[in-house]
């Protein structure tokens, strides 16, 4: 019984950690957000705090907790930085200019829920999580 549980947990962990790498990365926004498509450069500027508004709508970016494979994958593929460089960037930016870094979600489901709560919500998820999800719209896809 213990062995079966360990195998099951290990299998789920491997599935979870590899999902972010094996799947396309999709950027989604709240269904009411005033954007249809975004470029990689625009997404980069949002997650660096350089772009904070779509018209009058405050953008609310959502990332993931430190160490999450999906966060590291996004930072590497879209922002071309490591997690440590990104965290250092935000320490410096907040100290210099004020403002707030992206919120951190504990899971993909949490991130999607947070995006649906703000009309300016935006996050990134594995493509497999988008199908069937309500309240969001895909605006960018990065093939694996």
């Amino acid at each position, binding site marked *: 019984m213990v062995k079966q549980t360990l195998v099951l947990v290990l299998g789920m962990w491997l599935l979870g950690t590899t999902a972010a790498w094996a799947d396309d990365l999709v950027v989604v926004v709240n269904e009411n957000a005033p954007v249809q498509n975004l470029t990689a450069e625009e997404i980069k500027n949002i997650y660096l705090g*350089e*772009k*904070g*508004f779509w018209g009058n709508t*405050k953008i609310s970016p959502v990332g993931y907790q430190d160490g999450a494979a999906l966060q590291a994958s996004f930072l590497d593929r879209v922002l071309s930085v490591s997690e*440590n*460089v990104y*965290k*250092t960037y935000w*320490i*410096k930016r*907040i*100290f*210099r*200019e*004020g*403002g*707030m870094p992206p919120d951190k979600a504990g899971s993909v489901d949490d991130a999607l829920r947070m995006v649906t709560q703000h009309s300016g919500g935006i996050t990134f998820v594995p493509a497999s999580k988008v199908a069937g999800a309500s309240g969001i719209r895909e605006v960018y896809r990065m093939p694996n």
Partner: protein
Amino acid sequence: MKKLTWRLGGALIALSLYLVLPAPDAQAFKLNGFGDVTFDASERTSSEPDSNGFALGALDFYVAEQISDRLDVLAEFVIESPGDGFVVDLERLQATYSLGNNHKVRAGRFHNLLGYWNLAFHHGAQLHTTISRPFFLEFEDESGVVPTHMIGLWWNSRMNTGMGRVNIGIMVGNGSSIKGDLTGSNAGPAELNPGSSGDSDRDKAISAKLNFEPSFMRGAELGIYGNFSRVNITDTALAVGAPGYLTTVEQFIWGVDVVYLAHNIEFMSEVYNWINDTQGATKESGSVAAYGQLGYLIGERTTPYIRYEYLDATADAYFNAVGMTVGGLDRLKTVTTVGVRYDINYRSALKAEYRAIDDQVDGAVNQGAVQWSFAF
């Protein structure tokens, strides 16, 4: 600890209570900060013996909070030891209102937008590669000669052009003043006061900066900046109204900066020019200061660096009052620094450096320092 002086003790206690006590329907904000411990060793100078010892750097706390979609607040306060105890200083308190992506207006107390260093690096030693700031860019309460803080309004706009991004910043605020015993029996350097509690006259200081980030060279910045201010210097050793009791200096500081931060290279250089027109003087006096710093990140953690600092100060009422020139003599001072920084992780670093100082006042002096800096 000999003495604990709380200049803003009430504010600190209130802030601490706010952080500790849960408030219903309120979102607690997060207190972050910086600190450092430095071991300094210095040769004998004309005024100081050989010395070495440990020193606590400023313990720097800051909070940033989004009040609404367009309004955020940043507060920074520092616990530091000026020599005979500890004091708490409110360094920055700025409310920012965003008018879209490209325009912001701020009110409060902030760092003057002159140059690159003063806006990029604040009190946290962890943020800059070197152990210390360039000596002429030290803060007002540490014998600095540049008005590093301003209290007032700050407008900032940016425009994206085909060639790159243009940033324009304008600050309007209280003019600096200097007050102290300048000619009496206890005469000594006085502090440049940015006027946190008000202005000493009706004339406001104005700072402006134009900055360009070319799109064809990512990581490069070129800036030009200036500051107009009327500095009132009060000599408390003299009777009120006596000749020399109040001296006014019409001051214009201007300069350029060049920065390149890419491909593991950190290069920054700034020049400051002072044109001081002292009331009653026959002509304006000019002074100049500059530094250049180059570092290169090897691997992910190690950054060797070198910096050269230069100041050629004319002995006028302004530089005499802040103590940069003494006895009516001009002062030429250079500092050459060679060092290395090792990042333990993204929140902590060890630094070691050697400084060769050549100073008309203190002579040639060699110094060494080791610092452990951290963010929390």
